[in-house]
């Protein structure tokens, strides 16, 4: 009797240890974490019987941590922009994701299935980027209008160091008749008009106050920030420029040799499921990459939603950003910031 009680106790202890050891560490963007907890983290913990350790911060911190701990990864799975994911892939810090292990893989838009090549990442959200403007003060029909007389001294542009910066430069170049690949001429053009630009912002949240007090009447932003302006009493409008909208995608990656691959893939698959992508979309957190997600028109209005829109986005290839970022920043500092 005594022996069987001891054995049962031992088994319980081992089971407890096994349960406690089942932990997945993820590194994500810091916004909307309460909403994510409700829509994704809590249901997944219940499903897998595991514990999610959620680390937040900006992508530079995330990449630095992954690189510094490459020999013994402390992060199992992370979300990044396509260019940052490609940067990690080129350094051999992330592992390929076998599409066969993701039951929801085929439900994704084609561009989200293998966005950086080699199946090193999978897209989980899209964002369109266009121009928000005060419709009572100005009309915006082209990206080129950002450097026009109508908004002179009352326009803000994103800094080159952020995600929106290169996208805006690409669209300005296209508006000027370029292909959006060689941005040096556009950077020089912005430099020549630097005094007419109120500020080069790093975060779209900086714009809310500036646009409310008419300091700025037009600025490029990501669709994810549109909600702040839409709720305002002031007449803000989302431009439909003739060159189209720019866009981008955030992706999931899995660190190499983290020893937790099975659970990481299970989590990624769950995040990509129609159920979770719908919940996340309805909470207006992220736009879905799963093409089976259906939301109301009201919700869709706040998102980058639907095949027509997603397929029409002007997306800058991640490799282009990686190849040119340093030169762009160098020229930007010399010509624009001075």
């Amino acid at each position, binding site marked *: 009797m005594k022996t069987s009680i001891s054995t049962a106790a031992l088994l319980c202890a081992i089971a407890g240890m096994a349960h406690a050891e089942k932990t997945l560490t993820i590194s994500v963007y810091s916004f909307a974490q309460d909403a994510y907890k409700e829509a994704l983290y809590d249901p997944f913990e219940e499903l897998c019987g595991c514990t999610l350790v959620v680390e937040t911060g900006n992508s530079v911190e995330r990449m630095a941590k992954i690189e510094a701990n490459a020999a013994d990864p402390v992060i199992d799975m992370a979300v990044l922009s396509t260019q940052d994911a490609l940067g990690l892939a080129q350094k051999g810090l992330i592992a390929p994701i076998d599409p066969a292990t993701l039951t929801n893989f085929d439900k994704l838009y084609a561009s989200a299935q293998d966005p950086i090549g080699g199946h090193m990442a999978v897209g989980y959200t899209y964002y369109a980027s266009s121009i928000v403007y005060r419709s009572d003060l100005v009309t915006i029909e082209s990206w080129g209008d950002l450097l026009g007389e109508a908004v002179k001294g009352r326009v803000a542009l994103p*800094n080159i160091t952020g995600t929106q910066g290169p996208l805006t430069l690409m669209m300005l170049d296209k508006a000027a008749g370029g292909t959006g690949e060689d941005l040096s001429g556009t950077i020089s053009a912005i430099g020549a008009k630097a005094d007419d630009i109120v500020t080069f912002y790093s975060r779209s949240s900086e714009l809310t106050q500036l646009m409310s007090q008419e300091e700025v009447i037009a600025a490029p932003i990501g669709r994810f920030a549109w909600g702040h302006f839409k709720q305002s009493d002031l007449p803000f409008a989302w431009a439909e420029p003739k060159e189209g909208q720019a866009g981008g995608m955030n992706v999931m990656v899995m660190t190499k040799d983290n020893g937790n691959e099975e659970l990481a893939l299970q989590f990624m698959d769950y995040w990509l499921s129609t159920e979770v992508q719908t919940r996340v979309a309805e909470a207006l957190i992220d736009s879905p990459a799963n093409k089976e997600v259906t939301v109301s028109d009201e919700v869709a209005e706040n998102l980058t939603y639907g095949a027509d829109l997603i397929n029409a986005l002007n997306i800058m290839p991640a490799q282009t950003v990686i190849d040119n970022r340093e030169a762009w*920043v160098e020229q930007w500092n010399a010509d624009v910031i001075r």
Partner: protein
Amino acid sequence: MFMNKKEGLILALPAALFATLLFLLPVMILLSEAFRIDGSWSLQGYVDFFAKPLNQVVFLRTLKLGVLVAGTAAVIGYAAAFCIVNLPAKSRGRVFGLVVLPLMISPVARTYAWIVILGRTGIVNDVILGLGLSDTPVRLLFTETAVFLGLLQLFLPLMIISLVSAMENIPRDVIPAARVLGASWLQVFFRVILPLTKEGLVVGGTLVFTGALTAYITPAILGGSKVLMLETLLYQRVNVANDFVSASVIAMILMVMSFSANLVLKRIASARS
């Protein structure tokens, strides 16, 4: 005070250990990064930093704004401190409380207020337009003027507090005596008040100059990337470029500037006496 030197040392040990382990050591490790290039000791980080025109501009701008803010704070601070110490005791306490009050409000909130005040529809532009000084609103935000005003407002109380403390120690009859003997107010200031309050000026000047150099929130909000200062550049190097060598170089430059300011002010103060 202590029975022996050992007792004093034992009492100082926890604070010394705390400062050494949790402040000095990490700071030294961080700063040593600025001298390590590819595993060997080098000054190349500094050469590279100062070779870039943007960094030169940012360095000079930071120095200029630091000196301007400290200098202006000293001028306004002397006037304010002189008024405060000559108030009746009851009013003095109240006015001094008003001077200290801004220090109890978050610098973020204080700086954000300037976005409204200096904006196109803010009070400053209302006055400019009202007085007919300009036909259209003047752009003040994201200029050196905005950063200067924000920093001055942020650190002026520190200068006033230092100068009030120093002025309270001036014997009551000294200034009337100088006036009776025929000194003008300018002579009273340079020959009596300034020499007797030099310690307060050194403390206040160092606090304001160092504060202006190392402030992040105010230059970031009111200057943005158009008016980069060393502190905002440091943040960019770490958070955008993950470039800890440049960041360490900037941190070292800021430290050297702060210590140099203190030494220069002390030198000026001792030269006068």
